[in-house]
Structures are given as C-alpha cells and as structure tokens.
C-alpha cells in the first residue's frame, strides 16, 4: 500500500446495511433495562442494610381485604384488550396496604400478597414483588415497579402508550410492552410523573392498574432519579 491516508479513507466506504427494527428494539430494551437496573442498584445496598437491621420489619404486609379505593375509576372507557397481552379479567385482587410505606411514596393498595422488595436509595423508585420472587434488583419479571421521574426528562409523556385513563383526577396513559408488561404514566403534580410497570403475569387488568396508581401518592421525601 503506497498511500496510507487513501487506504484509511477507503475503509470508511465499507458500510453495512441499515439496522433491522429488531436490532433497534433490542438496543432500546438494553437501554431501558440498564436504566432501571442503575436506579435500583443504587438502592440495593441501602435496602440490604435496612433489612439486616430491621429483620423482616422492612417488608410490607397486606391485610388480604379488598382495596378501599372502590371509588377509583377511569373516566374514559378502557380498551377491551383485543390483541393485548393484558388479561381481560383479573387473576388477582388488590388488597389494602397496611405495612411500612416506601420512602417518598404512600401506597394504598397492592396486589394481594405483594411486599416491598427494594427501595431505591434516591427515594424515587420501589419494587413490589410476590413471595418467592427473584430477589435480584435487575429482574422485573412478575413484579410491580414504580418510579417517579421529572416530566422534563420524559419529554412528551402524554403521548406515551395508546390508552388514556384518569388517575388522581388527571391524565394518565397506559401502553403495553409487547409480550412482557403493561406500563402506566400519570402526573403527580409539581412536574413529577410516576411510571408504573406491571409485569403481565401478575394478571392485573388495566382497571386494577389504574386503581393501584390512584392509591400511589408522592410525599415531600421523594427524590427524583436522573437518567
């Protein structure tokens, strides 16, 4: 090769085809997983310390009674889930929550038997899980994940998902992550958006997810995560 710079310039000509939509979706999924893992990893050390000190006191308990939020309804009719991964009928019921509240939030009801598994150290996220669930903070299968975010970070979150609901008297949005989870966003006021992710195998209907979200409020102790 007589001219190194020409040879280097020619290397740039060897481009491959555009990425497939599967590749794009995989990149997105990897980013989303890393984002959630980072938030929860920040809290896992603190959570472990709390559990050691408090024994089982850190776990939430549920009464087993139906949730008190019977008046919580979506103002707009929800879709009938044709083609949706969310079951049309409930496999599980919500129960009034009587245990220790996660820092930064108040929770009124949870799926029966679920307990607080991980509280992020930034008091902006927590996970509810059933007994025997994977204890890894990086696994969201079969769990409910609640995260508060700054609306400015989410961009135009009002266009998220594909279904409108009413939560806390304001706008909420629901959408399906194909084959895995249902996600609900609602405004908690003061520029805060709460993101609830429910894994599909929990069996919550959209209506139950709205009821759960209606029972989730933020407190002044909330600290928003970033990134």
């Amino acid at each position, binding site marked *: 090769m007589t001219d190194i710079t020409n*040879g280097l310039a020619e290397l740039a000509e060897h481009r491959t085809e555009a990425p497939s939509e599967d590749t794009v979706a995989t990149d997105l999924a990897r980013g989303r997983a890393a984002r959630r893992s980072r938030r929860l990893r920040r809290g896992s050390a603190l959570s472990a310390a709390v559990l050691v000190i408090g024994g089982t006191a850190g776990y939430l308990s549920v009464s087993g009674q139906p949730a008190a939020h019977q008046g919580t309804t979506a103002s707009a009719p929800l879709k009938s889930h044709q083609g949706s991964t969310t079951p049309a009928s409930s496999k599980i019921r919500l129960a009034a929550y009587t245990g220790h509240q996660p820092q930064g939030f108040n929770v009124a009801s949870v799926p029966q038997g679920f307990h607080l598994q991980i509280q992020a150290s930034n008091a902006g996220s927590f996970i509810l899980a059933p007994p025997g669930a994977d204890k890894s903070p990086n696994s969201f299968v079969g769990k409910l994940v609640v995260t508060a975010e700054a609306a*400015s970070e989410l961009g135009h979150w009002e266009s*998220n998902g594909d279904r409108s609901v009413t939560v806390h008297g304001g706008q909420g949005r629901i959408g399906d992550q194909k084959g895995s989870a249902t996600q609900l966003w609602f405004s908690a006021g003061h520029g805060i958006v709460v993101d609830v992710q429910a894994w599909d195998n929990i069996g919550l209907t959209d209506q139950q997810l709205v009821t759960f979200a209606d029972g989730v409020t933020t407190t002044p102790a909330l600290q928003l995560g970033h990134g």
Partner: protein
Amino acid sequence: MRNARDEEFKDFVRRQRTALLSTATVMTGGDPHLAEDLVQVCLTKLYLAWPRIRSVKLDAYARRVLVNALIDEKRGLFRKREQVWAEVPDRPKNTGHDGDRYDLLGALGQLAPGMRAAVVLRYVEGLNVQETADVLRCSTGTVKSQASRGLARLRELVSDPHHSWQGDMQ
C-alpha cells in the same frame, strides 16, 4: 409502546447505528464481534444519558462514548486474557484491494487505543483536527502528534511483510 424519549432514541439508532458500527469495526482493527459489543455499550450509555444529551451534538457525543468504550475495553486486561489459542489461527491470503484493507485493519489494531482513535477519526471519519480534539477531549496539538505518529507506525507495520500480527491472536 410510544414514549417520547424512546422514540427519539430509536430514531437515533436507525440513523446512526450503521455508522457507529462501521467506525467501531475500524477502531477494533476489523473485529466485528468486539465492534458490536462496543456499539451496544455506547448505545446503552447514550440511552442512560439521553435527557441531558438530546440537545447536544449527538453524533460527536456518540463518537466520544465509543472511543471511551474502546479505551475501557482495552484496559480490561483480565478480559483480554480469556481467549487461549491452542494453535496459530489460519489467516487468509492477502491479495489486491481486500488484502490491503485487511492489512490496514490489522495494523490499526496494533496501535494504542488513543492513537488509533485519533487516526480513525481524522483519516477514516474525515473529521478535522478541532473536531477530533473535541471528540477526544484533548488539545489540537495532541491530535496532530497522535495522528502523525499513528500514520508513521501504520506505514512501518504495513510495509513489514514479516510482521507477526500478534494483536490478531490475542
């Protein structure tokens, strides 16, 4: 599911992934598997930082993250020691244009990551000295010296037919 942040990110991936993979392939000395790893690391870091970088020059930022991923990967000594070869792997006969490309990619793989990044950004990606300095977060003088020394080293490697290409076997 529609999500503004996600949609922006996906648009970026559709537009830039191919270019990033191409750059990464050259930066790794023609290792497509390592290049894919670096691009995945790069895109994941971009997604995590998206709220604060969506308004900056994303292409330049992405290149910077890619270079950092390359340098970080090379610092992972234990990772590089994972592969053990029982025999010297076969190498294709280098002939014609493809042979030159193969030689050049192999030679690039012998350069130190920082020097390699300067050469690739300047002479493969076609960035000017200032743009390269911005990506590498160094002075223009450093870019000039690194690129110059890198070219000189490449000429030595490519012109030496007896070079062992140890880097290809590590």
